[in-house]
């Protein structure tokens, strides 16, 4: 559970790449979230439209929560791969080595 002292993470060469990916993913999610606010604000009746047995409000709402989770996993996979490729090893592996 304890990882020992922190590594010298200030030398994370993958940081610029991870920051750029994060910003683009944030923009993508923000656009979809703003779309949700706009429909609720200016055309709430549209939210009552049927989609299967549910309606748009339910599908969009659950969709926003599930999409956030999916994006988070994709982001982590991209960042972990970048850390391994650019820094040569994963941060956590580095921790464990130092702790050992």
């Amino acid at each position, binding site marked *: 559970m304890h990882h020992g002292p922190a590594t010298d993470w200030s030398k994370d060469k993958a940081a610029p790449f991870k920051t750029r990916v994060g910003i683009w993913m944030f923009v993508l999610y923000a656009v979809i979230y703003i779309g949700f606010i706009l429909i609720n604000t200016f055309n709430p009746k549209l939210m*009552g439209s049927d989609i299967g047995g549910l309606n748009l409000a339910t599908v969009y709402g659950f969709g926003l929560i599930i999409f956030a989770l999916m994006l988070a996993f994709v982001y982590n996979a991209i960042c972990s791969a970048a850390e391994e490729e650019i820094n040569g090893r994963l941060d956590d592996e580095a921790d464990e080595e130092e702790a050992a």
Partner: protein
Amino acid sequence: MYETSGWAIAVFIAFVSFVLWISYHFARRTKTAKGYFAAGGHVHWSVNGIAFAGDYLSAASFLGICGMIATYGYDGFLYSIGYLAGWIVALFVVAEPMKRLGKFTFTDAVDAKFNSKGIQLGAALSTLIVSTFYLIPQMVGAGTLVTPLLGLPHWLGVVMVGAIVVIIVATAGMASTTYVQFLKGSLLVVFSMALVIVTLYNGLNTRPGEDRRQPYPEFRTLPVSLAEDGTLSVPDSPFQVVARQASGKLEFAKLSNDNHTSWWRLTADAEGKPILTEAYWVTRLAAPVTDSAGNQVSALYNGKPITESKPLQAGHIETLVYQGEKTDKAHNLGMLEFLASVKESTIVRFAKATIKDGDDAVTVYYQNPTSGRDIMRPGLKFKVDESRGATWLDRMDFASLMIALFCGTAALPHILIRYYTVPTPSAARKSTIVAIAAIGLFYMLTLFMGLGAMVNGVVDVTDDNMSAPLLAKSFGITLFAIISAIAFATVLGTVAGLIVAASGAVAHDLMDRFLNMKLSDHNKVVAGKAAAIVVGGIAILLGISFKGMNVSFLVGWAFAVAASANLPAITMLLFWKGATKQGVIAAILVGMFAAVGLILLSPDMFERYGLPRTSAPIALNNPGIISIPLGYVTLVLVSLLTRRKAPEPTALVQEAVGL
């Protein structure tokens, strides 16, 4: 009013004992400032992620959102969506840079580039103000919970929470707080899932009390005749109409039968014939009466002294449609089947109206049959539909709330300090993802818990905050005992996190850095513990003073203040090289005071002052749509005006974002 249960008390005591043991266990290992304020900086990311969930899923989430969904349907779920979406900002924008820049507090990160006294003071003040606004509803929620759980008065519940939290924080700071939050976050998600599984298995029923010890009231309907002169009578019935009162477009009648009076709503049946539908009512007496135990009481529930009455629980399905067919009950439903059935059915919610009965004020909680289609889309709480009278400002108010929820999460000081408990930026990222998974799952469950409460006759019409625990109670006292103890732990965990954030702001930001007191490591821990005790004491006083205030009201306020004061400073510092220290200070102060000022001048607050809502100079209740952009504009303008004096970005800030 609520019956206490030995089971509930036993589970509660066991839980609190375990929490105190955790604090004792970690106290021996917490000797340094890093240990106290950041749990040594080596908590595993998976533990930290669940602890994030424990921090974040406060009383407002569990009690407030479930209660709001139970009362207003989908509009309550909008809070769940907004609260979860805010984590996207935390993950993609602030998680790793905040970890790289900071040491113990959010102020460290904001001040990393400039080492400015002004930023240290502004950010510490912002931490204290946001934490205080967040603390009040948690403490009020604690008092609300112990009343049905342990049968204690509100103030004693607040004092108890305050005392336990001060012990947790003052013994082992962030270490014990982290593991208490881990425990609470895990239990909350697991037992919410259990509650939803039982709710779905139980299904939907037009007579929710059918298979319970305490049957659901019948809520009778009486045909009435309305004479040409407007006289109302109940033909072929022992009921006599003794009074009629109007509240806006609604009409109510007071009936008498065998010396017992009751209030009914005058409405029309499907054919347009006048009928009376039975209601619940609460009478605020001008002159107190004495109950059977000799106590003076000034409120009657359904005509009985409040001390001798049961809670007024209600909410049922009038017409149940399952798989396209009308039916009386449907058991063992899937998640989508449950939502589809609610959408196609008609549900009786209870709305309230206030009328006068002589010198007494009567609040009538009347049956309000609502189409499931309206319940499952926005509009019952938030005025957004133009065809139902929503104005342009009403819709801006709603958009403003949703923006504040989105932007507020990543700016909450008690959330930001959790990035310093893990060893690396990648661990900060991974713990945020675990948090999103746990919190996202919980928020999806809130829709089922809230709707389950709405249709199962359990919502206390006088206070919807207890909807989720009361839903659990309808399925058995054991589940209620566990859910209530977890709800109490929800408050403990969040309050502990807030007090750690506030004590860090006082001991580290203000005393050590701003006042330059050069505290030794040991003295910084002592100062942090002393600050925790003082903040805990203040929280107890505030919790008692604000009794009865809506739990979710001040949380929305805290989000708006945090987003307005902190988010412009954090994001612009990270992503705009032109930001100057004067710009950051101005943005924090302008954002903070604009948000607080706009709320103090809002219609909701004017109503609380006892003034007409229309006299409020600002028509918005949610300030985010004005105060957040104002924070950004202030930062940019002041930075441009003071740019010549701006230092080059330090290597640390460049490393933090890598751009």
